[in-house]
């Protein structure tokens, strides 16, 4: 069972190379942007990024620099989160559709692997392999960005050990980011399940067939019942910042003031995440149940539908 899962997930990485190419591309872009920024600063002498300005300012207190560094890294991470969001959705949409389109499904089904094992491996790829690949890229991107800023600071005559490496809450940020990366697919589970189901079910045009119902049903609900419950539920799931893990802060997102109050009191980002709220949230658990139902439906479709 576990050997089969490992082989199946590895197969997904072979087939869907975007799983590692996308985070690698984002890491490359963020790194190149850092280089461009440093060159621009050297050329024009003006720092446009307020975080970098604080980091490089010798007069600011240590706590402010810490906040600025954490803010800089989180800003960088948010690009990866957006990329991961698209990656997970498009992966799920393609995962059970591609094998039918290229007719390889008959070959896969000629091996001693159940339909349930196959469908679950696709879910695990979206929920574990994609966040893992993203995390590796985030760490590499953070290190490269900090190295580039260090080189620039050193060239300016400042000590990067003091300005960067002595101040940056690196591991705290990484643990917090890992937690968020684990939480995102759990939060998005009903959507991932839905997209996987459509991927198994749609004869063609899975994107349209996946998007139309979640766009039209809320409108119908509004016309018929004058309520927005479904639309709100879907929008909430589509957003990352609405996760109950962020409940201890305002829903306005990664606010600099929030960060400042957390980090200036020597608290960490990790302690700022609300694990209890997340794990006991009814929304999270209903989402997982809905995901389970869609996955069961996807398994059923793959098993019972005659592809000839």
């Amino acid at each position, binding site marked *: 069972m576990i050997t089969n899962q490992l*082989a199946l997930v590895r197969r997904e990485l*072979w*087939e869907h190379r975007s799983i590692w190419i996308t985070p690698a591309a984002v890491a490359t872009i963020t790194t190149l942007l850092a280089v461009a920024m440093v060159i621009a600063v050297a050329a024009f002498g003006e720092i446009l990024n307020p975080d970098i300005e604080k980091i490089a300012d010798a007069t600011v207190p240590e706590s402010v620099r810490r906040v600025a560094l954490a803010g800089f890294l989180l800003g960088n991470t948010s690009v990866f989160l957006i990329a991961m969001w698209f990656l997970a959705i498009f992966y799920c949409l393609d995962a059970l559709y591609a094998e039918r389109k290229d007719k390889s499904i*008959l070959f896969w089904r000629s091996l*001693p692997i159940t339909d349930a094992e196959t469908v679950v491996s696709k879910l695990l790829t979206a929920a574990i392999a994609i966040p893992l690949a993203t995390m590796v890229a985030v760490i590499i991107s953070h290190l490269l960005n900090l190295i580039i800023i260090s080189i620039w600071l050193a060239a300016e005559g400042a000590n990067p050990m003091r300005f960067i490496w002595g101040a940056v809450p690196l591991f705290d940020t990484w643990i917090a980011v890992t937690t968020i990366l684990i939480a995102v697919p759990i939060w998005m589970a009903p959507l991932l399940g839905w997209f996987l189901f459509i991927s198994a079910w749609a004869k063609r045009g899975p994107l349209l067939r996946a998007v139309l119902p979640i766009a039209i049903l809320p409108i119908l609900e509004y016309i018929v019942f004058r309520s927005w419950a479904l639309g709100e539920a879907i929008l909430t799931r589509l957003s990352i910042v609405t996760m109950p893990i962020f409940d201890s802060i305002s829903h306005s997102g990664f606010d600099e003031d929030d960060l400042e109050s957390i980090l200036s009191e020597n608290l960490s980002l990790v302690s700022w995440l609300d694990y209890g709220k997340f794990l006991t949230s009814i929304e999270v658990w209903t989402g997982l149940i809905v995901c389970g139902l869609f996955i069961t439906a996807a398994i059923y479709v793959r098993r019972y539908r*005659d592809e*000839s």
Partner: protein
Amino acid sequence: MTSLVTARNVSKSFGPVRAVDNVSFEIEKGKITGLFGPNGAGKTTLLKALLGLTDCDGDLSVLGLDPFRQRKELMKNICFIADVAVLPRWIKVEQLLDFVEATHPNYSRKRSEELLARTKVRKDAKVRELSKGMVTQLHLSIITAVDARLLVLDEPTLGLDIIFRKEFYSNLLNDYFDGERTIFITTHQVEEIENLMTDIMFINDGRLLLNTSMESLAGKFVELVTSGENADKARQLGPIYERDVFGKKVMTFEGIDRDKVAAFGELHTPSVADLFVAKVKGAAA
């Protein structure tokens, strides 16, 4: 004799269409059975039922298992090639071998590699870079390396040129078939497998028209080449099918004493292809 496949009153309907209609047969160990039928006769549906890819009514047991409900268990001991195009095009040959090795308990990678070494298939090539013939060689090298008790082939040589087709069957006999293993095969190219089959089945409109061993074919069917008056006399004996060849009448008889018709002309044992036409057209007439 042990039966690997036992089908009793197997049926499968798609809406009002009965693709497989009350079919019963057995396949014994060590046999090479050919299944023939025109397009839409129910061949593929029957094969899919055998492979657990589709549910069906009636009793169907393959290697003692219910194919639809115990598909995973079944696939450990069955191999099939459904069509030449089914290997995923994006995968590398090496990855494919890795994957089968990791998921199939009865697979010998070493054997696959030995077989591939005899071909032009490179291990670092992607399936999409291979010719159709090479893809079939690759597929055959995988299933031949699985220690499977039953091999099911559905039009395995479709779209291949004659050299690859000949090679396919000779490899199949030399590398896979050992008397212990069993092969069930469907193809339109009847002539190619005529000499390697031990048993033969005809299906049309979902029903079995014929199910017999190749050995008993000569005893059951006879073809008479005749003309003129003799033809009229022979026609009285009730041929199942009659056709014209170069001005002569060729009549196919089933279950008739050869001596009875010998006087009317020349006798042959019909080829499988001719017999197939006779049974299908004869049944339709």
